[in-house]
């Protein structure tokens, strides 16, 4: 379904390619497809209408800059308008003493996110503590405490105290030595007046530096209204999108950002406490539209590759060493989850075996660890890897010799693929994926 949407957008863009004058009908087509894509992604209907109107007028009225094709011109406008809406990359995180108040609907992931953010600041070297002001939900304090105990982050809470205000006041006293205090609150929605006045009171009492709104990526049209009410109550200055590891596109969060006039602070991308990411508008937009853009992939790939300085010419000569592979794995890591990259590649209707993506990111991490235990000579000419070397590497990396052999096998497949690429034509992605899948 979503793939179909992405491709219809691409088709609409294709119609614009090679044109010298902006074609009104083609722009209308594009805007309509864009609207559908955004609505499908849960962006607020009114926001979509406003956005598409702006894109339509700008596309038709603005002259394309010299040397830029119509298609690029329109694409740029679409992109700009969306970036404007999203409000750029990660905003508002400074590493200094501060108090952060978390707000959000029930079940949006406040408690988990609180622990994640505490860990983030803790890892950046700030003394961090959390207060559990959720006095309603049973088990809330235990949950936060368990999540924080891994890093020994102090967690204050009193499950027997029914008054959140008292808990917060006592918590601030108890955590007076810390630099960053994060206050987790009870889930509430904008129609519960007494809970809204409670959070207003907490906000006034603690003089929170930041008030962040936690939004579930799957939240629909309701996001706008909820965000507006929260904003009216406590002046939200940042939005955190959670559960972005699912299929939800996070359009609701976009509505929230636009409603509060703030930016996205973090993205929650998994259940464990380390799954917190900085926000990157490019990736978010391509996800929103359900359209992976190959060009941006190439740009990102180039960027990542440049830092690693992979010698492309020697690669093309067919000399592909483990060192190159290491660089490649690093680069891929930097580009984001493998699955996302795969979705950006124009591979037609080819579907990637589900478990390939699931396992490989873990595998890649292991491969890197194993390669870290190799000598430069081994990295440069993997053919010298014999039985005793394999055993030494396995011991050094703390993995089994079988895994080292698997890495070598993987390397050989890659090498063959690169050779095929050089030979031209023979490089068969499908076949490679099959081998890849068979190895797991």
């Amino acid at each position, binding site marked *: 379904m979503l793939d179909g949407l992405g491709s219809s957008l691409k088709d609409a863009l294709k119609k614009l390619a090679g044109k010298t004058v902006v074609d009104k009908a083609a722009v209308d087509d594009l805007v309509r497809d864009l609207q559908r894509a955004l609505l499908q992604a*849960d962006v607020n*209907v009114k926001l979509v209408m406003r956005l598409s109107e702006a894109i339509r007028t700008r596309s038709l009225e603005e002259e394309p800059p010299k040397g830029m094709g119509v298609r690029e011109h329109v694409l740029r406008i679409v992109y700009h308008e969306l970036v404007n809406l999203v409000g750029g990359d990660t905003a508002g995180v400074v590493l200094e003493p501060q108090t952060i108040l978390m707000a959000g609907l029930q079940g949006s992931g406040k408690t988990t996110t609180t622990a994640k953010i505490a860990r983030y600041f803790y890892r950046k070297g700030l003394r961090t503590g959390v207060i559990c002001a959720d006095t309603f939900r049973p088990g809330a304090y235990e949950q936060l405490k368990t999540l924080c105990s891994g890093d020994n982050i102090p967690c204050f809470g009193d499950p027997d105290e029914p008054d959140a205000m008292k808990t917060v006041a006592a918590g601030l006293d108890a955590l007076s030595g810390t630099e960053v205090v994060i206050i987790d609150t009870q889930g509430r929605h904008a129609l519960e007046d007494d809970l809204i006045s409670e959070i207003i009171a907490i906000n006034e009492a603690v003089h929170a530096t930041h008030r962040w709104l936690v939004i579930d990526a799957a939240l*629909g049209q309701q996001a706008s209204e909820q965000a507006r009410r929260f904003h009216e109550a406590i002046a939200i200055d940042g939005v955190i999108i959670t559960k972005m590891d699912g299929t939800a596109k996070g*359009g609701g969060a976009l509505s929230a950002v636009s409603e509060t006039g703030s930016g996205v602070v973090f993205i929650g991308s998994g259940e464990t406490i380390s799954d917190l990411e900085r926000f990157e508008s490019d990736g978010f937009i391509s996800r929103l539209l359900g359209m992976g853009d190959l060009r941006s992939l190439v740009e990102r790939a180039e960027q990542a590759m440049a830092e690693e300085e992979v010698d492309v010419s020697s690669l093309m000569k067919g000399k592909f060493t483990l060192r190159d592979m290491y660089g490649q794995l690093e680069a891929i890591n930097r580009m984001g989850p493998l699955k996302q990259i795969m979705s950006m590649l124009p591979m037609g209707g080819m579907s990637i075996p*589900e478990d390939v993506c699931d396992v490989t990111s873990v595998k890649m991490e292991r491969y890197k660890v194993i390669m870290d235990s190799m000598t430069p000579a081994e990295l440069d000419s993997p053919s010298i890897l014999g039985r005793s070397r394999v055993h030494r590497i396995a011991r050094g990396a703390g993995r089994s010799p079988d895994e080292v052999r698997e890495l070598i096998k993987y390397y050989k497949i890659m090498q063959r693929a690169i050779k095929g690429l050089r030979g031209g034509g023979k490089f068969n992605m499908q076949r490679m994926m099959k081998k890849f899948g068979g190895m797991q």
Partner: protein
Amino acid sequence: MFDALRENLLEIRKKLGSGISAAHDEGELALPAKAPDKRPGFAGKVKVLVTERELVIDEKKISGPLSDLEMALLENDVALPVTDAIIAHVREDLVGGRRRVRESVDEIVADALKRAVLAVLGDGLDLISYIQSHERPVRILFTGVNGTGKTTSIAKIGNYLKKHGFSVVIASGDTFRAGAIEQMRMHAGRLDIKVIQHQQGADPSAVIYDAVEYAMAHHIDVVLADTAGRLHTRTNLMNQLEKINRVMKPDLVFYVDEAVAGNDAVVRADEFNRVVGTDGVVLTKADMDRRGGAALSIAHTIGKPVVFLGTGQGYDDLIPFSPRMIADGLFGAEC
């Protein structure tokens, strides 16, 4: 819940109605000599046939209101594919439709809309009579993504069943989330319901198996099995759910989702349905939202009814639900 959608639909109904009545007027102009009242019999049938032909509803006349309807549905969180289905249904029903003259325009439109919604919603499920007519213990498994309110809903449903005179045991199958077992234990303690629990990190299948064994030994009527929230994209967690399903052999699988969810509701409902099947939907957090489009989206996608509606934080904030209730809620009981 549904208030906003209902208001919107009323508006659309008026617009559609005026589009059609315009067509209606033209029809009358073309055939002025028409009997106002209709008698059964051959002559009447002929008249109906004649007037029917004149009363073909023009697609152009209703395309404007239809796109308004589309926007209204989208604004109310009905997912795009489901919106398309409803619109197609209404259009098919109206365009070129041969309508009897005596039928009021408003009725035509309301009927078309209601039929479309009912077609999307499917049949209902009455839990009480289901339990009464099935072998005990009735095993109910709860699934859903994180944070939709599975644990709270189980407490509420446990409370609801107890009030209807059934004995209940809860399996605390969320062994992953920190604090989940604690949460369940406290809920159950307040409601005086037996909970079977292991420690955190235990195999959920084992916990649920124990609960079923316990129910059999103690002649308990209903087993409610909680599971950890999982995103449908996590293959390993979905496999675990499959295993739970295999071990427990549930009579009913309830899929829990929130009323505020947007388009993704469709994607994940579909995925959960594919892995463990679904017999009913519990829609939570309905008090947050005046729209309730997610009910339509989910019901349409998996073709299974909404059984319960969670409307608040209290144990009694649970409403048994039927498709007719949604339809009546949307269009008012009068039609």
